[in-house]
């Protein structure tokens, strides 16, 4: 089994603060380490700052008028806070953005090919990987000539994932990969994550709402609330934590609650608020 403690650190986020628009403080000192070759999950409620953390790492904040005002981010020991996103991709870090962000006017296949933009290993290799992606997502093969803007939500999500795989990265930042996917596809996506992780040694940092699945596949996890890390630890440990169970897995002592029963359930104040 993968042991997070013995692995060398690939990515180290050290106490970063992020401010949007010069006034809105969103991350209030977030630190995390991503071990090489592992799957790290970033969990937390809506607005906790997961997306912001990922964008801070991949340097996409500037275009949203956000900036990292404190702390440092190092990748393979080098400070990457000043790198532009393209340079980061060339170093092997790629992000799948929340909300799919496909290139609407390009066809599905062209979308996938843009993923290989930074590659220099020839068209044959790219072609091979394209086939690999189609094997992972047969639905995309059917829709390969459609404009991405006209594909369904799930198809776009697959396209975005496939596009990232096409760049043959060392590390993938996944922002809510399961959003809007049918159950068996969710499982499938995580299977793929696992396969790529184990087969090719790609490191994953994934932000997820679907805590259940995420913790099943991840090696370690961080829980973010209100711009702060409130819990961290190996995934197995987190899964057993009663607070996590209650608030993120929706389990009570008697197993899963029915959503129908929530009606009568009085909300307790969150333990962290």
């Amino acid at each position, binding site marked *: 089994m993968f042991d997070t403690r013995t692995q060398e650190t690939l990515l180290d986020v050290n106490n970063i603060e992020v*401010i949007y*628009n*010069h*006034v809105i*403080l969103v991350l209030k000192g977030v630190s995390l380490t991503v071990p090489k070759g592992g799957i790290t999950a970033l969990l937390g409620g809506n607005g906790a700052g997961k997306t912001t953390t990922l964008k801070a790492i991949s340097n996409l904040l500037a275009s949203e008028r956000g900036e990292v005002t404190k702390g440092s981010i190092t990748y393979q020991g080098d400070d990457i806070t000043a790198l532009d996103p393209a340079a980061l991709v060339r170093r092997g870090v790629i992000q799948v953005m929340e909300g799919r962000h496909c290139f609407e006017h390009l066809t599905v296949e062209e979308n996938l090919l843009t993923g290989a933009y930074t590659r220099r290993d020839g068209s044959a290799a790219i072609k091979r990987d394209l086939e690999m992606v189609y094997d992972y997502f047969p639905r995309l093969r059917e829709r390969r000539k459609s404009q991405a803007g006209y594909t369904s939500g799930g198809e776009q999500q697959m396209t975005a994932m496939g596009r990232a795989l096409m760049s043959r990265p060392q590390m993938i930042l996944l922002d809510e990969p399961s959003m809007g996917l049918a159950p068996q596809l969710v499982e499938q996506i995580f299977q793929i994550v696992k396969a790529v992780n184990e087969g090719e040694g790609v490191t994953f940092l994934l932000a997820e709402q679907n805590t259940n699945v995420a913790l099943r596949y991840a090696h370690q996890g961080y829980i973010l609330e209100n711009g702060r890390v409130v819990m961290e630890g190996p995934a197995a440990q987190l899964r057993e934590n009663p607070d996590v169970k209650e608030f993120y897995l929706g389990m009570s002592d008697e197993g899963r609650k029915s959503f129908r029963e929530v009606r009568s359930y009085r909300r307790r104040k969150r333990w962290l608020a």
Partner: protein
Amino acid sequence: MIYREAGDFKTSYRDDSQTFPIRLDRWGYYAILAVAFGIIPFVINDYWANAVLVPFLIYAIAALGLNVLTGYAGQVSLGTGGFMAVGAYAVYKLMTAFPDVSIVIHILLAGGITAGVGVLFGLPSLRIKGFYLAVATLAAQFFLVWLFNKVPWFYNYSASGQITAPTRTVFDQAVTGPAATAPAKYLICLVFAFVLAWVARNLTRGSLGRKWMAIRDMDIAAEIIGVNPLRAKLSAFAVSSFFIGIAGALLFAVYLGAAEVGEAFGINKSFLVLFMIIIGGLGSIFGSFAGAAFLVLLPVLLKNFLVGNMGWPTDLAAHIELMIVGALIVTFLIVEPHGLARLWRLAKDKLRLWPFPH
């Protein structure tokens, strides 16, 4: 903590939805009004009226109008010059045909006529969107200018096609023609600008304004939640053209006094007013004024500084002035892409937090 809102509680929805919910803003606003109506008219001279304040107010009205259409309803228009021409020629025909009717009524009617023309050219907006819509409005721009240039009836068959505003009075004070005094010109423009800004504010905060903004932000979703896009767009065209028509009427009658359609209402005017609202802030009433001030005042100030104070040759000054204006536009956009209005609000946000950041 100079600027604060703490302790300023609202106890009714009415209070909460007033224009300046924060007390300090309200006072600032009253102070500006007091100066504009109570002090400036007594101290204004011809230079300030004719070269600065009158054009500023008139462009502010035009910018308000375009902002309704582009900033609030999201329909890009490059027909402003043409619509201003409609206002100008309408007021000219009315002034000369009915010399005994008050000029104020003529100006309002000119706005109404322009609104009609605006609706006509707004019809394609149902199908054509975004920058493509600019083509419809450009067609209006070029066609209207051509029309006013070509049909002698519009310029009362004068030899050159120039129209000249005769003298008309309001409360026995000449506001058009050569005898109009600086305070009179300033005041009539101010009154129009004030009333129209107030109307614009009312329209944009009510249900009509929400329809416009819904169409702007996502027209399909707006339609699905029940906004009739045709009516929303056309009403925006109508209101916008009404404002712009009035601006055109004032521009011709009060400010310039004489005009030739191609020169005074050409495509450049359309662009100028569009620049104003982008620089000032799309979808902002304050932004319309700020943008107009920026583009009317800045060149005058620069000119006076470079030529008057630095003694540069006029041509060099004019060229450098272009470069400075261009550079400033870009700089402002980089600092705050949403215009001066947003910059102002951000400054207030910071002030509110001051002296503690975040």
